């Protein structure tokens, strides 16, 4: 029952149609299944492979365009493999108030990477609130919420 869509893992199995079919088979009775199917695929493989789009379309009898439309709409869903490490930094107002703009710049500098660009090893991504706004700046590092984040803590 506890389905944890979106929780990050450090490694994922590589995409296969067989395993994808198996993931989708548990969703046969869901009303309005497209989004949840994409989330389930991403939960298993870390991203949504192009073949998964066709597979979802066939399985649930919807058009490929419909599936693609949902896939591109939601910020969480990704079409490139998940990086090994994922650093999400909250850049919303309450965290801005305690220096998240400077924090982003410092993490970018330290890791030599730009925020919101794809890399295979470490990605830094903007996030908009983790509900940790009284203990900002907030970050989610490899799926773990961090309060009073600093460049040292994030890159430790």
């Amino acid at each position: 029952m506890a389905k944890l869509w979106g929780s990050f893992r450090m490694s994922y199995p590589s995409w296969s149609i067989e395993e994808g079919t198996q993931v989708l088979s548990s969703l046969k009775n869901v009303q309005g299944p497209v989004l949840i199917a994409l989330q389930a695929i991403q939960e298993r493989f870390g991203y949504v492979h192009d073949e998964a789009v066709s597979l979802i379309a066939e399985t649930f009898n919807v058009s490929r365009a419909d599936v693609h439309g949902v896939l591109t709409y939601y910020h969480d869903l990704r079409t490139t493999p998940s990086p090994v490490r994922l650093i999400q930094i909250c850049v919303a107002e309450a965290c801005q108030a305690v220096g998240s703009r400077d924090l982003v710049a410092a993490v970018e500098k330290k890791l030599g990477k730009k925020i919101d660009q794809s890399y295979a090893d470490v990605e830094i991504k903007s996030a908009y609130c983790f509900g940790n706004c009284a203990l900002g700046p907030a970050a989610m590092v490899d799926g773990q919420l961090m309060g009073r984040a600093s460049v040292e803590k994030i890159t430790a």
Partner: protein
Amino acid sequence: MSTVVYIPNDSAAISIGADQVAALVAQEAVKRSLKVTIVRNGTRGALWLETLIEVSTPQGRIAYGPVQPEDVSSLFDADFLNGGAHPLALGLTDQIAWFAGQDRVTYRRVGIIDPLSLKDYEAHGGLVGLRKAVKQSGADIVAEVTASGLRGRGGAGFPAGIKWKTVLDAKADQKYVCCNADEGDSGTFADRILIEADPFTLIEGMAIAAVAVGATEGFVYLRSEYPTAIKRLCDAIDIAKSAGVIGSSVLGSAHAFNLEVRVGAGSYVCGEETAMLESLEGKRGVIRSKPPLPAIAGLFGKPTIINNVLTLASVPAILADGAGAYAARGTGRSLGTQVFQLAGNIARGGIIETAFGITLETLVKTFGGGTLSGKPLRAIQIGGPLGAYFNSSQLNVSMDYESLAAAGGMLGHGGVVLFDDNVDLAQQAKFAMEFCALESCGKCTPCRLGSTRGAETIEKIISGVDVPANKLLLLDLCEVMTDGSLCAMGGLTPLPVKSAMNNFPEDFTGGAKK
């Protein structure tokens, strides 16, 4: 006898070390051959005191905080298990001024109980409301909610009872109750904390709503940024089902109510209720035109109650204590209590539940203690990314729906975000436009394109290009967005922008401030 020690399992507390503290307390106790039972409660809401440890004593719960992992052994040395003196000792939790000054109604059990203990829940007044509800007619329940004056806590402040009545009166073979737990507003976390600390209250509130209007299916739309809350709510639903609280029979009555959690996918606009319905149906989260109202044709076209977490979580208390007790609190048409959230650059951040009508000054100074940095307080944004920025001369505003509207702002979901004098309001205004551009569902041109245009125009003002002309252009743009947007995403983005311009004109004179 084993001493009971409470250590929160709230995700914010964990984010600054509560799990390490809990592990060390367990270790030290073993090392010293002391009998300790650790209860992982939710946070009591004083996030500035986390990790807050409480020890159960004959006098009541005694608090220590903020405890860092390195403080644990000295707490044992000080005999904290018997309330011993220590630099971090805070006395009886209930007597700490920050708590004593609050009026916890919706949050009555938050931080007090073990979130997943149904026994604890009932021992602290849980299920009293639902037990009453299953013996009442739907019309009577709706009348009680209406009489309480409860208004939607998600932002729009629409009277809950009127919405419920519409769903009750709609004839349909299927009705739904949907809880909006998308909580996308920066500076808000009251839904998250309630779900993590007292999930049965939300389940009970949804069950009451379902019984009232004859709905048999419910969904909680919970954002993916809250993994701990997702897990806890799923666990609580399983427990409530096996205990017969919900499921094929609600507390042994003829009502059935099945409840499921659906996880969001990182879209702010999906917090708007019709976009949420689209998302629950598995589609792109594009806003629907109203009418029809979701109360008439909502999820899968069926009559649907949509309420915020705090709205639904207030209902058990209203039924348990009676509408009169709730409506006796507050002011004017803002009745009951509001769960305020103090955030941003704040010394004492967290949850303040009080009756409506407290002043902003009391909230940010008496409770909040001013800025975290100790530098002068310069700006306060109330009500999330679509809310207004106030300056420090506007602190006497009363925190209720009408007074905030009269002051040119809105309450929203009750988030209050403080900024010190490092803030540049032109940058904040630009961010408001950028956020709108990022999150726009794309249906209306003023929202989709106007916001990008707005961000560019503010950038020009910041760089000192044609400042007077660009300010006029920006105001025009704001007007077009306000008038030409289907929903509050485009319609209210001008609020932070214009309030920043009005209340901080010195930041819009061109040339970077610092």
